[in-house]
């Protein structure tokens, strides 16, 4: 089955080479970071988590988002999602792999990472996050490969895999809930200290994950013979639309609570992100652009002509994905550190090397995704189109 990844068009190989090139640059930068220490990045004592942890947080969402196709297929026996379910599971594998790489890149003492297992600490949410993330990775590898293997051999998958598939559904919810718990249980970080953080994370995950999935499916439709089908496509659009609306609704709730209560702690970070605080406004253009992209995406998702057309739909999905990426992959984590506990404002700009490492982790994720999808699609096309 693996050999399917080794046969491909020149476009396929160019793409692989580009990814490998980015990974190479990132690996070079990581060696430098490893030798110098995390001062190699733009992080500081005030903004002590940067791009790595914010990407990690966002990607946990993408991983969890895959459940929006897995759930209807397994629980509601929604056969239309048959072709896309495997894509959802493989997207989860690639995303969790990226999450783990980002965590490793962020550790000051990466060689000691196993201390988390050697000294298990039940009261630490990071310990639980590690458990649920690795568990989710294992579940998706098991379910994804067993199902595909069976299809490859032309048999039906063994019955024992079903419990794993069912388990992966609540597990997907758990990974993003526990990730929210990393943030929302910290006294004194008012921006994160909100019970709606986990629901917000889930809503944005259920929009961003399927949006990426559908966008990839649209590309596959153009470049290969693999088509997930019109009905599945429409269903996904509906799911994405509702999740996106919920996401923006939740964001609105944060604004209401902050500004109506007039509590300084609740307003400071929102001020910083959307208007600027004491003249510091580095993230303001990004956050406003995120709202703009979100609005464009909603217009597309609500206009029948636009969402029926693959091209405009694609644009809408990209807008939505980037809107959510800015919101969670930048603003949420970086904004939470401003102002600092002594109410000083320190801004954070990632260093060039840090950005290269970040890009390289994304490239590694996309490489994993490409190889897995290549195998999956070759198998599916071979079996379905004799």
């Amino acid at each position, binding site marked *: 089955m693996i050999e399917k990844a080794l046969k491909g068009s020149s476009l396929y190989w160019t793409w692989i080479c580009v990814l490998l090139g980015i990974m190479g640059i990132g690996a070079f930068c990581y060696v430098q970071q490893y030798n*110098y*220490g*995390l*001062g*190699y990045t733009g*992080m*500081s*004592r*005030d903004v*002590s*988590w940067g791009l790595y942890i914010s990407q990690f947080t966002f990607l946990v969402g993408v991983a969890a988002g895959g459940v929006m196709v897995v759930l209807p297929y397994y629980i509601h026996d929604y056969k239309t999602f048959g072709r896309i379910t495997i894509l959802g599971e493989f997207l989860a594998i690639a995303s969790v792999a990226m999450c783990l790489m980002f*965590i490793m890149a*962020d*550790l*000051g*003492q*990466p060689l*000691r*990472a196993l*201390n*988390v297992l*050697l*000294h298990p*600490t039940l*009261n*630490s*949410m*990071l*310990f639980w996050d*590690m458990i649920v993330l690795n568990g989710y990775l294992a579940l998706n590898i098991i379910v994804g490969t067993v199902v595909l293997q069976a299809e490859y051999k032309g048999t039906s998958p063994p019955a024992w895999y079903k419990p794993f598939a069912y388990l992966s559904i609540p597990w997907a919810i758990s990974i993003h809930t526990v990730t929210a718990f*990393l*943030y929302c*249980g*910290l*006294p*004194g*970080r008012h921006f994160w200290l909100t019970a709606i953080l986990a629901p917000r994370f889930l809503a944005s995950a259920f929009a961003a994950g399927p949006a990426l999935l559908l966008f990839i499916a649209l590309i596959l439709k153009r470049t290969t013979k693999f088509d997930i089908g019109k009905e599945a496509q429409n269903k996904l659009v509906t799911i994405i639309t509702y999740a996106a609306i919920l996401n923006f609704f939740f964001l609105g709730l944060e604004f209401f609570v902050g500004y109506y209560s007039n509590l300084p702690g609740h307003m400071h970070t929102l001020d910083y992100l959307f208007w600027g605080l004491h003249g510091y406004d580095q993230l303001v253009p990004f956050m406003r652009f995120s709202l703009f992209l979100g609005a464009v995406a909603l217009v597309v998702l609500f206009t029948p002509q636009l969402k029926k057309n693959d091209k405009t739909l694609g644009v809408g999905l990209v807008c939505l994905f980037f809107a959510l990426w800015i919101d969670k992959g930048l603003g949420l984590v970086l904004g*939470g*550190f401003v102002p*600092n*506990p*002594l*109410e*000083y404002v*320190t801004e954070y700009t990632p260093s060039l090397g840090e950005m290269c490492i970040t890009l390289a982790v994304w490239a590694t994720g996309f490489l994993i995704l490409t190889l897995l999808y290549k195998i999956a699609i070759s198998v599916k096309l071979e079996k379905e189109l004799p």
Partner: protein
Amino acid sequence: MDKKRRDFLKIAGLSAIAGVAAPTALNTLFKGEVIASDHGGGHGAEPQGQGHAKIEVPTGKRFGMVIDVNKFHRYEGLAEKCTNACHSIHNVPKFTDPKVELKWIWKEPYEHAFTEHSHYKKNDELHNMPFMVMCNHCDAAPCVRVCPTQATFKNKDGMVLMDFHRCIGCRFCMAACPYGSRSFNWSDPRGKDKDGKPLIAKENTKFPTRTRGVVEKCNFCAERIAVGQEPACVEACGATKAMIFGDLNDAHSEISQVLKKQYTIQRKPALGTKPSVFYII
């Protein structure tokens, strides 16, 4: 009344009783005590319970510090003297870039040390006073709660300490500390600065230096207390008595006596961290 409806009411009634009784029962079960109930008399005007947190019941030792801000104001240079004493004894490297500097104890103006207090119409003197800030050795320390390896832990004397060899450098504790008391070694603290001067001017061989990639903070001079010495900053204050260190749980200790007589405040008490550092203003 038909049977179904009666049954329903019975069940509803039972659940209501269970609902009222359960929290108390659970509290008794888990904490061995009953809180916020039983005031005895049924006087309408009396509150049913107290809103504030339970009185902390002393168990074992709990070290704490009182910082007299007036004295720091009066004796010029005392703040710097304390910082230097602490930093040189503990091999805290001197990075000049404020983004990556390490500090265990340092001075802050009132509005940054006490962010949640009103700064409106306060006297000028207050704004000029140096407030020494350091780790509060919180009794309910968020940094201890979040650390995934127990590299940050509370010892039996109520000190929040660190194991530099176990820390993986995830910096979760820095996100969790509501006082900004923690510093991270962004690069090698044993190295040299741009001008080739060592970051640790004169190494104290009795205290470990750290490696890059780990977190550090004030340790209440646990290594000195263990051999019967005072904390270095307290020693630096000397006869001024600007800082007083001792066991908060010992009613006869000097610190307890001072706290009994003087009005003091703690930083961000609303967060429930129960800081062990008190300020006389």
